[in-house]
């Protein structure tokens, strides 16, 4: 029941927000998102962290004759993803506090509506419901990015939209095929899919059908070409939603709908995926070093980080999977924080070019500290959240193949290079014309950054709080994969 509430509350709130004209919509949306966060905390409190099975389940007939049900529930991995979503969405709404978007009621309604899609993806226990929610999350973000975005938004977001739909249609075809393989009166329930025993040839192609959809969403090299442009052209809030939460849909999809469903397919292709992911890590890091636009730089760094997560989870060992889960949280928090800081800088100087900035530390001590902490989290310094995830992921990759681990480990060095180079260019040095009168953080900017920074340290110092939630679910997943 609580899951259904979590799923539908944002959509209901979105309808409410639609009715409110003017900038008041923002406040209502923020309160609604806070309520959603409270609901998710309640779900957490009632959650049995010892069990790997899905909890808070609800199953209602949807298309009865076809065996398709409206079936939702959460295991530890889903719960963490839901918590990430409900934690970030209020902050993202709050981060738009100063922006005066046109038609604010539509803007915030779309964000809340998207939240329903995101939660739906993470709690769906039925393949078609998953697909359904997958697209429900896409449509609002397309409109947010395409209507409120930058100058080249139309072309860029269109590419993004067609690209992702193209991938997800393959997923749909694979789901339909799997569904028709289930015995008896067919079912699209996740457990029915787990129990299928398919020939390794069919697993082989199904693997690619599903992987393309997830790989485009993440994005994994070479399916990433939509991402830097889309992140750059979207409004800041859309970029945060895309990078902070939406790309986790792809990784989550791999965990829930790819690895356990076609284990033989995975064992045939895992090496290819690891190679692609590792190429992506190095390639994106090197490109990030050469970027002059802050948003593009973080966009490429995001490809590198996601590449490591993808590599980690395809190793199919516990470290890799657990590292993937914890790194999803860390990456979500860090990247949202970094994009927000870029947005703060942009709103004051009207530029994102590193070369036109500089010397901001002299005026804005507070901003520098927050920026530094999030940045260190992102380059995986010990005691910060990034360290836990990257350590586990790299140790997972090392167990799989030491050479792969060695190359993937470059991410830490290269990451430090581009991140610190960026920090140096933006924050240190002499002031430019644009940063002459830079003002420090306002209260509401702090209100966004403080929770993020708290989480950076929380995950960094006490990762067990989160790892223990996902551990039974990860073990359960592994036992299904290795059956």
């Amino acid at each position, binding site marked *: 029941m609580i899951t259904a509430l979590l799923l539908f509350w944002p959509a209901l709130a979105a309808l409410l927000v639609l009715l409110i004209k003017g900038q008041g919509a923002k406040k209502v949306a923020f309160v609604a998102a806070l309520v959603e966060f409270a609901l998710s905390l309640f779900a957490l409190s009632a959650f049995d962290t010892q069990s790997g099975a899905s909890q808070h389940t609800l199953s209602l007939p949807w*298309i009865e004759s076809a065996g398709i049900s409206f079936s939702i529930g959460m295991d530890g991995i889903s719960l963490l993803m839901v918590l990430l979503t409900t934690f970030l969405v209020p902050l993202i709404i709050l981060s738009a506090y100063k922006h005066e978007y046109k038609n604010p009621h539509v803007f915030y309604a779309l964000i809340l509506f998207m939240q329903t899609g995101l939660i739906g993806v993470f709690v769906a226990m039925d393949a078609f419901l998953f697909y359904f929610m997958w697209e429900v999350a896409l449509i609002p973000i397309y409109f947010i990015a395409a209507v409120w975005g930058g100058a080249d938004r*139309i072309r860029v977001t269109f590419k993004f939209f*067609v690209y992702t739909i*193209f991938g997800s*249609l393959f997923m749909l075809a694979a789901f339909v095929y799997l569904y*028709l393989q289930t015995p008896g009166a067919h079912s699209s329930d996740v457990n029915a899919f787990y129990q299928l025993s398919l020939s390794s040839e069919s697993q082989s192609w199904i693997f690619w059908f599903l992987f393309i959809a997830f790989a485009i969403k993440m994005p994994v090299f070479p399916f990433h070409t939509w991402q830097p442009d889309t992140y750059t052209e979207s409004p800041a809030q859309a970029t945060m939603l895309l990078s902070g939460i939406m790309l986790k849909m792809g990784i989550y999809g791999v965990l829930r709908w790819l690895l356990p469903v076609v284990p033989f397919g995975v064992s045939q292709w895992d090496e290819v995926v690891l190679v692609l992911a590792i190429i992506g890590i190095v390639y994106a890091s090197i490109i990030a070093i050469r970027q002059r636009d802050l948003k593009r730089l973080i966009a490429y760094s995001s490809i590198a980080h996601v590449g490591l997560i993808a590599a980690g989870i395809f190793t199919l060992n516990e470290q890799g999977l657990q590292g993937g889960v914890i790194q999803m949280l860390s990456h979500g928090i860090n990247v949202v924080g970094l994009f927000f800081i870029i947005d703060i800088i942009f709103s004051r100087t009207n530029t994102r070019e590193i070369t036109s900035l500089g010397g901001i530390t002299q005026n804005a001590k507070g901003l520098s500290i927050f920026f530094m902490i999030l940045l260190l989290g992102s380059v995986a310094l010990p005691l910060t959240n990034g360290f836990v995830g990257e350590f586990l992921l790299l140790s997972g990759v090392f167990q799989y193949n030491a050479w792969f681990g060695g190359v993937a480990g470059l991410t830490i060095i290269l990451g430090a290079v581009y991140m610190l180079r960026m920090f140096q260019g933006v924050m240190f040095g002499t002031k430019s014309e644009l940063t002459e009168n830079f003002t420090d953080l306002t209260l509401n900017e702090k209100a966004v950054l403080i929770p993020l920074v708290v989480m950076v340290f929380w995950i960094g110092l006490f990762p067990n709080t989160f790892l223990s939630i996902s551990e039974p679910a990860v073990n359960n997943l592994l036992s299904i994969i290795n059956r």
Partner: protein
Amino acid sequence: MTSIILLSVFGIINLFVGFAKNKKVLLPLVLLFLAIVFGINLLDWNDTQSYFSNMLTIDNYAVAFTGIMTLTTLLLLPFSQRYIDIADSNLAEYYSLLLFSLVGAVMMVSYENLIMLFIGIEILSIAMYVLAGSDKSSLRSNEAALKYFLMGAFFTGIMLFGIVMIYGATGTFNITEIGAAQAGIGADGLMNTMFILGILVLIIGISFKISAAPFHFWAPDVYDGTPSFFTAFMSTVVKTAGVAAFYKLMVAAFAASYTTWFPTMVAITVLTLVIGNVGAVIQTSFKRMMAYSSISHAGYLLMALVAFNEASDASILFYSAAYSAATIAAFGVLKMVQDQRRSADYEAFNGLGKTNPLLAFAMTVAMLSLAGIPLTAGFFGKFFVFSAVLQHTDMLWLVVLAVILAAVGIYYYFRVVIAMYMQPAGNYEVVKVGSFASFTLIFITILTILLGIAPALVSELI
């Protein structure tokens, strides 16, 4: 059965009412007629009956499709509101011709005899030839009527030729008897050749009517030239009736020669999908794009036919319903925009999101539905069709092709969405919308979303 008689009678009554000077009564009257037909038609549910010495059979299949086609016409009519204001428009005649056309359509989904199929198609088509040319002062409309008529007459001839050959081979026009008779003709070489030739010629004839490639060449020009209001009817009711008739024919008469016609049908399906989708991409006119899009949807419908299993009829039914709803909304909005802005190009929709939020939203939902995106009926349409086809594991390639082409579809459907929401309105003013039309648009939009959430409402009918 009663629906056929009622529709004919209502059509004639309507002609007489047209003599009255007050045109305002016509629209409510026709809507009432259609509502009556819709209701009475439903009474035949679960009550299979044969009429006229087995010429027509009203079964659930017929009732379901008749229901959808009547409802489609009913929802389309409010968009003719503007004709009421034009002094020299022959409104009563238009309405009567639509009703007569619907008579033909109903016969096409309930025939039991090839003669009835032929008569049904003719009744439907002749009314449409006239309506295609109804904008007498427009050269394009005249061209459309002439093209449609000449081509239509030619392919009707071909179809008749096919029917005759099948009669020659089996000695009957009754489709069930044809189905039973073909086991006996296998031994006779000449008869067998004639029978197979008959099937193929008949396939060509019907393919023309539903604008399946490679017999689609008339469609873009005719759809483009015909006044938008009638184009909407052409691409919904006519297509639904055609595909339903096609499937009925294949199941009842030619199921046993599946392996014979299967390769031809697959080729037609693939060509239709490719030509429809690729053709739509390069259009600059929204209306012409919709013409190609209707070809592509004929392709998806044919996929369900090619699947030829127990899931096919429900898929065709649901797909037709979803497609019809979205198409009426799209053409309804197009007609209003076109009337005011004098253009059917994508640019005519610029800034509609600002000037007419309702029209833009209805159009967006329609486009999402046509593109097959979840939360809309079109998604489940595609879903059911793909499921039907995937039951043949060796036809995976067809689904993959359709998937790729569906992604292409998103490209051209979203161009109008982009124009509406992301381009400035420029000099365009607010489009005037009648209250009746806006109400209908809201209804269709809700229907599309409802079917996108609870598809079982329609898909479990037959």
